[in-house]
């Protein structure tokens, strides 16, 4: 444990926060500023080694509110820029703030390739299922049929589920939270920071103006969340409901919601969450659960240790080549291979 004793205030910049009142992004900012002092202690990272990178969109303004090194880049490219920051200096703790449009539409390519490389970035994906900054067009996560300015008769596109996409692209860490659960978000961010490899944290945020209550059916308030979400914790039973009397079991190859004490189900029948297993089957099913058939999964769904971490491999390879190479200086390079003397 280091001894920085940072407070959340230490990570607040002097810039006025300009999101709309009631926007879910405020809560996530709060969670991040609470998480960083804890991460600094746990991983021994001084403030100057935190770097926040964002793309374009409401959520990408996030970085201006952080008192760290930060870079507000261009639409869709946050992950690509962050990949350069991390591979340029693997010693840094690199965070990406991005939205559903920024990372899954225009930046979709960089998103999947970061996951494939498993480079150690922490990606906070603000999912409000709408384009906010351009004032209300459907996004790649908008529900089918959503009426927006560019879909006046309803969208005719299937949405992405960021969890399925992450796991399908070889992602090793996926977690989901909702804006209102400030402490849950904080805990998840601390876990994401500790994971070596790309961590994707999907924050379900509400856009009051253009897509109000898009997550409300299952996330509107504590009581609703208790009944319609399930908080997954590694090593614990998959239970939910205000009385923790509902749970998930496997029925053939499908998940099934059961009530303990009904239809002969007991606590022993309920699945235990293993976030660390390499197998993607159950993680994918958990990430894909949709209201109202299922509770929406929150918490760390997947956190798999992997020997393939891009920035670590990069450093190892550089060291081993440096040790074995005959070329140790610019002069060695210029005089390597066929050289001849005249005179």
């Amino acid at each position, binding site marked *: 444990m280091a001894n920085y004793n940072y407070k959340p205030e230490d990570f607040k*910049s002097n*810039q006025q926060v300009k999101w709309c009142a009631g926007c879910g992004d405020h809560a996530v900012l709060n969670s991040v500023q609470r998480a960083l002092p804890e991460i600094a202690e746990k991983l021994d990272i*001084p*403030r*100057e*080694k*935190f*770097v926040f*990178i964002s793309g*374009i969109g409401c959520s990408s303004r996030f*970085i*201006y509110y*952080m*008192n*760290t*090194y*930060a*870079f*507000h*880049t*261009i639409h869709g*490219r946050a992950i*690509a*820029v*962050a*990949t*350069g*920051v*991390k*591979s*340029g*200096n693997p*010693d*840094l703790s690199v965070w990406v703030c991005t939205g559903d449009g920024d990372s899954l539409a225009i930046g979709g*390519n*960089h998103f999947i*390739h970061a996951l494939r490389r498993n480079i150690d970035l922490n990606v906070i994906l603000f999912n409000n299922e709408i384009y906010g900054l351009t004032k209300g067009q459907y996004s790649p996560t908008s529900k089918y049929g959503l009426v927006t300015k560019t879909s006046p008769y309803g969208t005719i596109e299937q949405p992405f589920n960021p969890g399925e996409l992450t796991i399908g692209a070889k992602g090793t860490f996926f977690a989901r939270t909702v804006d209102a659960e400030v402490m849950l978000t904080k805990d998840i961010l601390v876990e994401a920071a500790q994971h070596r490899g790309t961590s994707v944290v999907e924050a379900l945020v509400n856009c009051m103006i253009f897509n109000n209550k898009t997550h409300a059916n299952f996330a509107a308030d504590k009581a609703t969340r208790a009944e319609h979400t399930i908080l997954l914790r590694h090593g614990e039973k998959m239970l939910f409901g205000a009385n923790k009397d509902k749970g998930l079991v496997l029925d053939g190859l499908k998940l099934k919601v059961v009530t303990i004490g009904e239809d002969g189900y007991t606590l022993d029948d309920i699945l235990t969450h293993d976030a660390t297993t390499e197998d993607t089957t159950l993680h994918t099913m958990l990430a894909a659960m949709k209201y109202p058939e299922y509770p929406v999964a929150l918490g760390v769904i997947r956190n798999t240790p992997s020997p393939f971490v891009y920035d670590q491999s*990069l450093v190892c*390879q*550089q060291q081993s*080549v*440096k040790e074995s*190479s005959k*070329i*140790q*200086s*610019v*002069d060695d*390079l*210029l*005089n390597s*291979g*066929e*050289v*001849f*003397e*005249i*005179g």
Partner: protein
Amino acid sequence: MEQKTSLLKDVVIRFSGDSGDGMQLTGTLFSETLALGGNVISTFPDYPAEIRAPQGTVAGVSGFQVHFGSVGVNHPGDLCDVLVAMNPAALKANVRFIKPDATIIVDADSVTADNLAKASFQTSDPISELNLEGRNIIFARITTMTREALADVELDIKSKTKCKNMFALGICLYITERDTAHAHEYINNKFGKKNPTVAAANNSVIEAGYNYAANNHLNHSSYAVEPAGLPKGRYRTLNGNVATAWGLIAASHAAGLKLFCGSYPITPATVILEELAKHKSLGVTTVQAEDEIAGICTAIGAAFAGRLAVTTTSGPGLSLKSEALGLAVMAELPLVVVDVQRGGPSTGLPTKTEQSDLMQALYGRNGESPVVVMAATSPGDCFYSAFMAAKIAVERMVPVVLLTDGFIANSSEAWAIPQFSDMAKICPPFATADNTPFMPYQRDDQTLARKWATPGMAGLEHRVGGLEKDCATGNISYDPANHQRMVDLRKAKIDAVADIIPEQDVVGASDAQTLVIGWGGTQGHIRSAVEQLVDEGASVAHCHIKYLNPLPKNLDQIFARYKKLIVCELNSGQLATYLQGQFPQYTFLGMGKVQGQPFTIAELVEFIKTQI
């Protein structure tokens, strides 16, 4: 060795055969021997875009041309004095590159009905079909003689036949009055340990070819040239892409920065990424990005993190990088973008050369978005241009676009090896701990460069981005006057680079009336054409521009001295249009060529003559 004929000033030899015939190796080995003997060389490989085009066809022909001489060899030559054709297709593919008095050495064994058909000959006599009767044609049974030379060697017939390129090399070494020592040394180094039998076989065949030429008195067509009298020193051959990579590595060491290259493979620029990827021992990090945009974006991220950041590409890739290049302009981060130009638009002619990205480099971004633009002038100059591009980028906190082209990227020349200790230092304008509170957009009075604070420097935490910045704090600013000021500052910062670039020089007749202006990779061709015209008594001079934005300060004074200004370039007049805009008081005549090929000296001379 018997001295046979008078020495020539320069000679062009072209090796040509099937893609699998080893022509690139033969050409390289031959060129190195010439360079070792003190000749100036310029080489150009000309191979098909297809990796394995059908054997025996014209599409599958791979060529390697070398121009060597005593002085003034700065291009690979228009037409060849000697053509080595390993099959009928090679003969057909090269018919337009042969001088009227050329010697053509043909592998007689290859002239079979089957090969003639594959190369679409109508008759059994390729020489008369191609109207080559006046040439000095030598039909040598190269394949047969190669196999015979290896009769006692324990190798299968296919492996023996593969040595036939060395037979051709032996012939060429004889007719240019070179010895075979370097070729043997190379073969021994390459195969000696791994496969001594193959090494011995190749060595025997080189001698067999050499002896064949001697015994058959091929000295009637001797192509010896006198040594160039190059200054004493250490030399090597180097192509433009490798030179670019090495220049960037040298710059990173001169700056004390680690080099980072984020790139996506694209012809003809890929070799730069490949070369950089080899040199992790020199602190180089390469990321093969998922696309061109990620290439430049990773580089921008690395620049933010304090690295010497580079992205390499060709024309279509530069188009994809445009928006991100604007971000580097706005964030005022050092970045080198190398564009190895190729034929366009769109996919165009990927393996062929052109200079048609000048306007894209100068103006191809949204908004008022000036960058430094420069162009390398020869394969060896790619090293120094890449070094200078990095120096300007880092010291001035600006993106620099370095234009090279497919021709100089693939060509090579004998290059005097510099010492790293003789190279300039590069001084990054790092912020220091006392720069608090840190104002990211405060500038140096002279250079207008902002300070570079990189993650890890405590107390200098700050935010940058693509939105317009307040001119000091870097906070987002929509203030109209601030925007005007920042636009003006970004331009003034680029203009200030003119203070550190060399003055423009002019070569040619001192009292010349006509100035021939070129830029980038055409320097060798234009220089040769102008020298020829000066020799003929014409009143011309040559001005070759390397720094395109900003332009050298003394250009106006130079232009004022001439009655006629002719701009020769491999596009439809981009530099001419640019100069006309910068210097409306003069008239610029344009000569553009857009055929995917370098200029020929003959066409340059002819055009310039019509103008003077």
